[in-house]
């Protein structure tokens, strides 16, 4: 009995407190409930939304376009490219949405007689069976570490983090005046045995390596 009384009192106290809050908000309790339920449903519905068009889809479509042009205007050393009937592979190191968008743009395209293929790499790649490695911001990898892991290979290291080409990478995507542009570190591409065409180096902003401690 005592328990029941306490429960009732507690219930009444809760109702009073709720009503008081409602009064402060100048809405009635049923409206409060309605708001809360609506908000919960809204949140629940939003959490169940499937991955589809991404907020930065356009950004990665543009970057995919640049990757295609890099494949066109960079010359890989003889022997590092597979035979003409095999794939030209772009590896994407990504923890976000970039991979699917880039695949949708590049997969199946022809470049210099090769069919393009985009593949995902999750960590520092052990197998270097690709020609371009694109590292997204979401991957949160140091370009310097990646460069060291790719030492001795003819892989074009492309990234989008701040000063990527200066801090160990070869080509960086930078935002300037709302558009996406390229930075190019010729010293690094040359060291990797890659030959950049004049067409590409005239459009990209040339940068130098930072003396990283």
């Amino acid at each position: 009995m005592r328990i029941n009384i306490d429960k009732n009192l507690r219930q009444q106290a809760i109702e009073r407190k709720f009503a008081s809050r409602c009064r402060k908000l100048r809405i009635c309790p049923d409206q409060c409930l309605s708001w809360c339920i609506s908000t919960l449903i809204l949140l629940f519905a939003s959490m169940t939304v499937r991955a589809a068009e991404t907020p930065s889809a356009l950004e990665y479509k543009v970057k995919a376009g640049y990757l295609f042009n890099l494949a066109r205007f960079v010359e890989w050393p003889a022997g590092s490219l597979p035979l003409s009937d095999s794939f030209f592979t772009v590896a994407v190191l990504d923890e976000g949405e970039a991979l699917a968008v880039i695949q949708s743009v590049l997969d199946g395209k022809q470049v210099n007689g090769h069919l393009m293929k985009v593949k995902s790499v999750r960590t520092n790649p052990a197998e270097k069976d690709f020609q371009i490695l694109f590292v997204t911001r979401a991957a949160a990898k140091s370009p310097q570490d990646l460069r060291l892991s790719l030492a001795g290979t003819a892989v074009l290291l492309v990234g989008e983090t701040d000063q990527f080409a200066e801090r160990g990478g070869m080509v960086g995507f930078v935002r300037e005046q709302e558009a996406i542009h390229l930075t190019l570190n010729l010293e690094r591409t040359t060291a990797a045995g890659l030959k950049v065409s004049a067409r590409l180096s005239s459009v990209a902003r040339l940068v130098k390596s930072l003396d990283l401690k």
Partner: protein
Amino acid sequence: MALRSSGRGSDYSLHSAQVCSKKVLKKRRKALCTFRVWLWVVILIISWGSLPISYSANDSALGSAEPDFTSLSLEELGSIKVPTVYGASKHDQRITDAPSSVTIVTSEEVKTFGYRTLADILRGVRGLYVSYDRTYGYIGVRGFNRPGDFGGRTLILVDGHRLNEPLFDSAFNVTDFILDVDLIERVEVIRGPGSTLYGDNAFFGVINVITRHGKDVAGAEISGSVASFDTYQSRVTYGNRLTNGVEVLFSGSYFDSQGHERLYEPAFDTPDQNNGIAEGRDGDTFYSGFASIKYHQFTLEGAYIARDKSAPLAAYETLFNTPQPTIDKRGFARLNFNDTLGEDWVVSASAYYDYYGSDVDYLSDATAPGGPFATVLNKERDHAQWTGFEGQVSKAFDQHRLTLGTELRYDFDLTLHSVNVSPYEVLTDFHGSAERGGLFLQDEYSILTNLVLTAGLRFDDYSSFGNTLNPRAGLVYNPFSKTTFKLLYGQAYRAPNLFEYSGVGIDSKSNPGLGPEHIRTYEMVYEQYLPANLRFSASGFFNQTDNLIAQAVDPDDGLLYYRNVENAQTKGVEMEAEYRSKAGLFARASYTLQRTEDVSTHEELSNSPRQLVKANVGVPLWGEKLGAGLELQYSSRALALPGRPIGSADPYWVFNATLYSREIVKGLELSASVYNLLDEKYTNPAGDELTPSVIRQDGRNFRLKLTYKY
């Protein structure tokens, strides 16, 4: 601007006691019902988005109407605009990554909807509203737009350069805005406090106007328009990137409007005041210029406007239907430097010079008791000149991006001068100077790849009132690639402007203890991208404003002075849905529900509509050659100042429509706009200085515009 001495005391914006009557409750229920309908519509949309349909980026990324990105040249790729915001963190970032609720209005939208002024642009933005008293425009954000203020709680920037002037804090946004809207590349509306980056005035929000680049103009443009009320405007622009790498943009504009030939205002409807008709007193003229020269890391930029508006509504109890020229002149020149120095420090620095001048003539009744009718002409001549330096360095390392910045400013010429011509009498003659300095630090800390904390702190020191410290913190979380949650807290301030601080108005005195206004804001933002290029966002906010500056009368000597007295709070929600089809169809709709009240009395503030609705639809009719823009704006009732004969400005709906064509003839753009299509009779609450309670706005009017590029 005028030296304001209303004498109405500190109850400037509080409405008379509002009883919780059945009528009020009914309205409240109606408002909530409307809100619930919106909410459920949104839920349905999101539920649709959550249907387990087979869908992947492969299906969506390349539509038939989109270009094949592999077929684009390097130059073409570099010309594609990817939406970003600069002003939220002082560097370009994705809108969803910004620690604020952000809206971007692009130059395309300016053309599509036929926007004529910055105020037109802002009226179409979620949660914003602009009142117009036929002289100046006043920007309302988050339910706050106190009649009689000059808009000092919104910071307006052009390319990051502050436009609010130090005498009255004015945020010019109608024909007095320094840029022709045709020179705007985009407008960033960043809601919430921005004082941790920008200091003064970034109270309710920051509006950063980004100008076009010379290389985008790539030649010359001539533009002319004709509009209602005998309005004509012309513009000549040249921009290019020269072969030596220098990028230039030069532009000049001239605008002339006769305004309403016979403007009727019922508050003056007496035989001795021409039956309330102001004849030929609504004219508006300006000329403005803008120049930008970029070379490598240096940018030299300057702008100037001189605008002469005839004020038709006899402010400050002057004589109605007499000339009252109100001239505002605003200019600046700035040299900016941006580069990466040393190892990896991104450095930017700028030095600037600014000017503001205000010339106003008032004709008042000076009839002595029992004497013949006599008038007195008062000439007010105020101006300010200031110069300053801003610098910042930022460095990205590991998971942090640190930004350290400073601002030093010297207002070396502050003048408030007012004389009666005959008999000659000096009413105000203040000459002074002021200094201010600020130091800020911001860290963007990527705790996880999808969780970023932005924390900032800014210290400002003023020669007038002392110092203030303002922090902010924003947590941006992306649980899924298309979903963003933002949890935001911030503080900001508005320093007393010279007029408030100096106390040199007529029958006024200074208050050495006058301090800055403060605001604390709490906000949660939810942004969701949906299939088929649909975007949805919602936010809930709570603002607590303290120490609002208000005018009062000292009972001891009867003099007016400013003091920190009022506290107000706002709570509200905003929702917005946006759709962009691959074929170019654009639609955006938003709803704002808010309430702003005085903390102590719980009375609603003046000029604070509880509900705002905005809807914009851009329809391509013939590819990119022909299109139409339709716009709808709704505002619920807004209270007028207390004690006025008319208690409020009625709710209103305004429709605007624009039809435009481009490149039907090479280089030619044409547009025809009708504003207030349904000729809605609506009003905005008036400030203290005006006799009418509410100000009538323009009825249906049109504009034809032609632009030729070569």
